[in-house]
Structures are given as structure tokens and as C-alpha cells.
């Protein structure tokens, strides 16, 4: 009778295991396709941990279920074998502190320790590459990231781009110290407010644009509470912290935005491989840190244009539509 309990455990654990085996094949039940240069590394680390933990899950649960079956109410058990006391060497030393130590315990301490150390150190390069400020993309030349400022607030992402002219200037081959200083001045803040705002800065709301293959450096801050800049498809997540500006960067490997000649608008959620609209290509910035009652609908979008030309076409379009009626090239705006 008691043996049946092992069946209950076994069935429930199999159902759990089955769910994890089925989920990757259900379209919306698994990791969304990663579309940034580092998403592959993050996913690989996820799968390494998944396989290792999956193995130990099966091993330990199977042993538990088997022992529950095998040793259910067995009167007159066989005595546990005792090991002869070791004379000298490692085990004798071990037994001084652990009189009841068993050889198998040494094995199941050292093997998991090595596996865990491997898991831990395998994370370090990827982590530092993504997050460490000192490894920020280099400024200067064509590889210079484009830069935008995301100011989070309840409950939207206010985005500020530099003018297209300034952005182009940062990316020219002949980057001089003045350009670099200008690049840095864009990311200089007094609290959450830009210290050197330009009148021709381009403000947009809830949309961050870049183009395929182009690194974007997001200067992230918040004016009220903690928010979290979370772009699951790019494997990006960074809290916006009141009083601090935190640089976040990613490089998309795919585009999702095309110019619709008929509507004269840019539309995202477009799959260029199949040439069709595809909801898997809507890449959202969904706030991931509780920020108040509107937290759940604090959602922006990432627009990745097909190429540089289309991106600048968009930026110039926004510039024109938002240009102040008079004196567009005023010097630094007063705050």
C-alpha cells in the first residue's frame, strides 16, 4: 500500500519535467527569439544551467521516488554498512572532524562544488561585457554608438535624441576632441535633467530607434521612482535609479521597422525574412520594476530600422515635424 505514494510523487514530477520538455515547442511558452549581439551568449548560459539542473532534477527525484518505492515499510532492514576506520591519510584526517563521514559524502561534495564553480565562473565574461561601465563601446569613428537619453517617469519613457546633424557628427571618421566632448556633454546630467540640453534635441515618447547592427547607448535615468528598462527580446534589463544615470547599450542583429510608402509611416513588428508583419517582431520596453498603479502599462517599443539611411530619414522627419517655428539654432536652452 505504501508503495503507491512513490507513484504519486513520480507522476507529479514527470508532469513537471514534461512541461519543461513541451514548453520550447509551444510558440509563446518559451524564450522569445533573441535579437541582440549578446542574446546568444545569455541564452547559451541559460541552456547550460537548464541542462545541468535538469540532470540533477531527474537524478535526485528519480532516486527519491525509487527509494520511496523500494523501501516502503520493509520490516527488518539490512543494517547500513559501516566503513572500516581509515588508518592515516585523507580519510583519517576527515574522520577527526567528521566521525561519521562516508566516502560517498566526499564525492557528492566535491563533484557539485566543481560544477557550481564552473557555472559561476562561466557567467563572468558575459556579465561584465554587458554591464561593466568600463567596457562601454568606444567613442570615435564609425563604430561610435548612437546615443539617446531615456528619462523614465510614471508611467512612460521620455526619449531624447540629439539632432541628426549632431549624431552624424559623432560618427564621422575624423572624430576630434571637440566631438568627443560634445558626445559626453549629451550624457551629462544634473539629477535627471540634461545639463546641456540643445534646443534642437529631438524628443519622442515611448520609442527608442536604432538600426540593424548599430549599437545604441541609452543614458537611463528617472525623475520619480525606480523603473526598469526591460527589453526581453534584446536580453536587456536595467533599473532606472533616482539620482543616477546608468548607461545601457545593445546592438540589434535584426530589423523590425519599415517605412510604409502608402501610409507614410514607420511600422514595427515587421519580419524582413518572411516579408510579413509578425507579432514576434514587436519588441517592447516593458517596465519591470513596480512603479505604481500604471506599472503594467508602462510599455514602450524598440524600432530597429533596416539601415542607417532609413533611421536618419525617420529622425529628420521627426525633427521637421517638431521644429520650433522660429530661430531653430538657438544656443543652449535655459532650464
Amino acid at each position: 500500500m505504501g508503495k503507491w505514494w512513490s507513484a504519486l510523487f513520480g507522476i507529479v514530477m514527470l508532469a513537471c519535467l514534461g512541461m519543461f520538455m513541451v514548453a520550447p515547442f509551444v510558440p509563446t511558452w518559451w524564450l522569445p527569439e533573441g535579437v541582440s549581439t549578446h542574446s546568444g551568449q545569455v541564452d547559451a548560459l541559460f541552456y547550460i544551467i537548464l541542462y545541468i539542473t535538469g540532470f540533477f532534477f531527474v537524478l535526485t527525484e528519480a532516486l527519491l521516488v525509487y527509494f520511496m518505492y523500494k523501501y516502503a515499510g520493509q520490516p527488518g532492514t539490512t543494517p547500513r554498512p559501516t566503513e572500516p576506520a581509515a588508518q592515516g591519510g585523507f580519510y583519517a584526517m576527515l574522520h577527526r572532524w567528521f566521525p561519521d563521514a562516508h566516502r560517498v559524502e566526499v564525492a557528492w561534495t566535491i563533484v557539485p562544488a566543481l560544477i557550481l564553480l564552473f557555472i559561476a565562473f562561466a557567467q563572468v565574461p558575459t556579465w561584465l561585457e554587458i554591464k561593466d561601465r568600463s567596457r562601454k563601446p568606444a567613442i570615435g569613428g564609425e563604430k561610435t554608438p548612437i546615443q539617446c537619453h531615456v528619462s523614465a517617469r510614471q508611467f512612460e519613457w521620455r526619449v531624447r535624441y540629439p539632432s541628426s546633424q549632431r549624431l552624424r557628427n559623432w560618427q564621422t571618421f575624423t572624430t576630434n576632441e571637440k566631438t568627443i566632448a560634445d558626445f559626453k556633454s549629451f550624457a551629462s546630467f544634473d539629477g535627471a535633467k540634461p545639463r546641456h540640453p540643445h534646443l534642437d534635441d529631438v524628443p519622442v515618447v515611448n520609442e527608442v530607434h536604432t538600426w540593424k547592427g548599430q549599437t545604441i547607448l541609452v543614458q537611463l535615468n528617472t525623475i520619480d521612482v525606480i523603473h526598469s528598462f526591460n527589453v526581453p527580446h534584446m536580453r536587456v534589463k536595467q533599473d532606472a535609479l533616482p539620482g543616477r544615470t546608468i548607461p545601457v547599450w545593445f546592438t540589434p542583429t535584426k530589423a523590425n521597422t519599415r517605412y510604409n510608402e502608402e501610409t507614410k509611416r514607420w511600422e514595427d513588428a515587421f519580419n524582413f525574412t518572411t516579408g510579413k508583419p509578425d507579432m514576434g517582431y514587436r519588441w517592447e520596453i516593458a517596465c519591470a520594476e513596480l512603479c505604481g498603479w500604471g506599472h503594467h502599462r508602462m510599455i514602450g517599443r524598440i524600432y530597429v530600422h533596416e539601415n542607417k539611411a532609413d533611421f536618419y530619414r525617420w529622425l529628420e522627419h521627426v525633427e521637421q515635424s517638431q521644429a520650433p517655428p522660429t530661430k531653430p539654432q538657438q544656443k543652449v536652452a535655459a532650464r
Partner: protein
Amino acid sequence: MSSSQLHVGEVHAHEHHELSFIHKYIFSTDHKIIGIQFLFTTLLFLVLGGALALLVRTQLAWPHAELPWISSWFLESNGGRMTESFYNMLFSMHASVMIFFVIIPLLAGAFGNFTIPLMIGAPDMAFPKLNMLSYWFMWPAFILILVSFFAEGGAPAAGWTSYPTLASSSMPAGQGFDSPAAPNSGHGQIFWLLSLLFVGVSSMMGSVNYITTIINMRSPGMTLYRMPMTIWALFITAILQAFALPVLTVALILQSLDKLLGTTFFLPPAGLEFANWETGPGGGQPLLWQHLFWFYSHPAVYIMILPAMGMVSDIISTFARRALFGYRAMILSIAGIAGLGFIVWGHHMFQSGMDPRLGTGFMIATIMIALPSAIKTFNWLATVYRGNVQYTAAMLFALAFVAMFIIGGLSGIFMAATPVDIYIHDTYFIVAHLHYVLFSSSLLGIFAGIYYWFPKMFGRLMNESLGKLHFTLTFIFLNGLFFPMHILGVAGLRRRIPDITNAVLESPLVSLNQFMTLCAFALGVSQFIFIYNFFYSLFRGEVSGRNPWHSNTLEWVAPSPPGHGNFETIPVVHRWPYDYGDYGSIDHLKQTDPPDPSHPSGQHH
């Protein structure tokens, strides 16, 4: 040692007069009564926390459902639907209640109080009046947390973690302490802060008492290495709590000052700009709260599991009729988890803006916690190996603890790995992980403990058939509820979302959430079996006698229930508590059984 024994004996002798009802059952200094008081009050809060959880689940599964009864109860209306701030309040209070008013006081307060003196052979705690005070300090906390529901603007809705500046921002006193971050609310947060201060003081008094009692009041022969795992776990937990709690207390006071007196401990120098209000300049750091809070609350995670591990170790050994495998390794791994537990708080803050290089250190320490956890798991398995397993309700819950702790332990490695955490941080994956540890492990351990010690508490056995039915339904439905949360997290469902139909990754997950909510309701209904069984057995259960489980530890030597002073004579301990099986005609050797050369103890020396 002997002088303190004598002293306690004297005090005991003076107290042999009949106590009035109030002194015996209400303002009692008897550790057993205090433990039972903790048990009853925390089980009541478990019902409250569970009800809040079911409301959360309802909203997740049917986000647009009209629930007119909610608006009529709580005077909040959104066209008959649940408002977002009401939902935020629900999960904030569910977590606060479950953590601070259920799991911690159940393990430390109820089981700590009840088992420690009985299992070490002491007549009572070292400081019985302090012990009584530690229970009665919970009452202001109970009242404050319940009052917060009726505060203007409702109970706190900033999460149980209460991160500034969402939780801490407050308009000046002249404008009524409203929170600019959550208009028309913010008063509940003040009650929450004060309530937790009382919980902290209560826990601190308990910890000091447990540590002193275990060090000073063990009966003759009860050396440290003869203490049952339950006591070892409670001992280490008490130390953990005593060192971590002051930091939480400081954090709570700082946030209270920010809210009430307008200090700026968590307000950045440049100040903040809310839609309707601008704070002046501050001088603090919002991240400071996270460091202080997690410096307590991460050890608190272990406070919420280590005692259950200890109890489960004793229960498994008893019902497997087998010596606990690797006794010293079990002690050392609990100490290891507790020790590492102090240097891993930063793993809650990988994406918070803390220096990422610091995150690397926290990650390595965190991943290494899996090692003592793995050792414990292997030891439990080895204890069952070649055992003579008796499937009582207590044993089933204890074995389920092991099965579920494996899941909760393994899923923790994903979050500990910093790059993987970028994706799964603040998704349902972490919700799955913490529920596997807190509900599926700790609470199942608590159920095991209740079924196991019920006869000692009340002198009657709980009904085994009902217990097994309760177990079966609980085990099935909790997995139906919590396991899919892993999938939700991997699919990208954020936590703390009142309406999951907004985001592109979340909206396809509604039907899975509906399945989970049905399991949640079934899980909730299954608990009525336990409630019925508990109260039925309290009055009508089979009389248990002293030692219904043929167990070795000292509490089973005392009468059931033990009288005032616990033992008729102070028990003398001759062996460790795990001499089961292996002795031919003798099934087990109690700790008080004298040494017998023909039946040597299984403990190596």
C-alpha cells in the same frame, strides 16, 4: 551547567500552584502555551494571506472580469473591476502577511517555542517572561497591519520590499502624508513600517531567548553533538536573526523618518519630480534601502527555511526508521547556508544599478550556497535509502519537502547567474522559485511538523486518512499552481502586473494563468480538510500516549501534553537521537536509554 540546572529546578519548584485561566492560557509564560498561541494566530494569518493570494490569482486569470463584490467590500470601484492599485495592494499584503506574520512566526515562534525546551530536556525557556513578551509584542504588529487595510487610501501597495522612492515618498505633514507617487494613498505604508518594527522586536526577544536556552539549559548528557537537527536548525536560525534584524530595524526607522519627518535618507540630492509635486533637494540614496533591506531579508529567506529543514530531517529519520545520514555534515551545511547567507544579499540587486563588478562577487557566493543545499538533499535521500519507510501524513509532507526543495533549489541557480538574471529578473521565474521555497518547501515542512507534534501539543493524534487526503490534494494542486510559473517567467511574464493583456509577450499566457488559478482555488479548498481535521482531532482525536511515533527525542519522554515544567524528572541523555533500526529485536533507542554494550549507538565518536 549543573548550577543553572539547579537554579531552574528551584524556580520550577516554587511555581507548583494552580494558575488562573488567564495566567495559564493567555498571559502565559509557559513555552508550550506561547508556542501554541503563535501557532493559532499565525494559522489565522495564513488564512488571510491565502485569501489575498486567491484574489491575486483571480485578477491574473480574468483581468477584465467584473467583481462587483470587491468594490462593495473595499469601496474601490473601476466599473466593477479591480483597480490596479487594489491589485498592487493585494500582492504587497499577501507577501507581507505570509513572510512576517505566517512563515517566520510559525517556524521560529510556534515550533521554536514548543520544541526547544522539550527537545533539549529543559523545563522552560531561559527567560519565560521575555518569551511571553515576545508573543505579546506581536499583537501591536497584528493590529497595525490589519488597521492598514482600513487606512485612508488602503493598505500599502509598493510591494513587500517597499522600495524607495515609490514607498518612501511623502508629502509634508501639512498635506496629509499622502504619497505623491501613488495619489490618495501612502498612509498604509506608515502602518506597515510600524507593524514590522514590532515584529522585529518580537523576533529579537525570541532569538535571544532561544540562543540562551540552547546554550545554557540542555539537560545532563545533552552535548551539542547529541542535539536533534530541529534544535540545531533553530539555534543557527536564532543566531542569524539576532545579527540580521538590527539592520532591518534601522532601515524601517529611516523610512519612517523619511515619511513622517521629511528626512531624506532615501531621496537623491537632486530631488524628484512627481506629476503633482516636486520634492526639494535630498541628500540620500534610494539604493541604500535595498542594501539595508536585503541585508536582513536575504538571511530572512534562510530563517524561513532552515528550521523546516531541521524538522524534516528529524521526521524523515523517525519514519524511515533509519539514522539520519551525515549528521555532522547536516549541521555544517546548515551553518554554511547561514554563513553564506550573510554575503549574498546583493543577488537581489543585480539589475538595480549596483556596480556590476560587485554583482560578480555576490553571484559566486550565491551559487556556492547550492553546495550545502545539495549535501542536505543527498543526505535526506541517503537516510531513506535502505530504510523502513512508514508513510504517515507527517512523513509524506516531509518527503514532499525534499522533492519540492530540489525544484526550488535548482531554479535558484538561474537567478544567481547574473547574465541569465538579466532576462528572468522580476519575471514569474522568480515568483516560481520563491514559492517553491516558501510554500512548497517551508509550508509543507510546517504541515509535517504540525502532524508530527500535534499529539505532543494536544495529547491526541490527527486523523491519518484525512491527513493523507490533505497531502495528496495539496501536493497535486500546488504543483499545478506553481510549476507553470517557471514557464511564464521564461516566456517573459513580468511579476506584479494587474493586467497581463497589455504586453506582447504576456497576453498569450492568459489561458495558462486560468489553469493555474483553478489549481489555486482547488489548493485553497483542500486546506479546509486540514482545518476540519485540526479542530476535530483537537477534541475528538485518538488519544496518543507519550510516544505515538516510537521516536527517540526527549519530548516523547514527557507526557502528552506535557504539564507545567515538562518532565517529571529531568531526563538524562545517553545518546544521539538517531538510533533507529539496526538493533535486531529493539526497534529504536531513545536518547534517555542507558548505554548498552549489546546495542551500541549508531553515532560514531
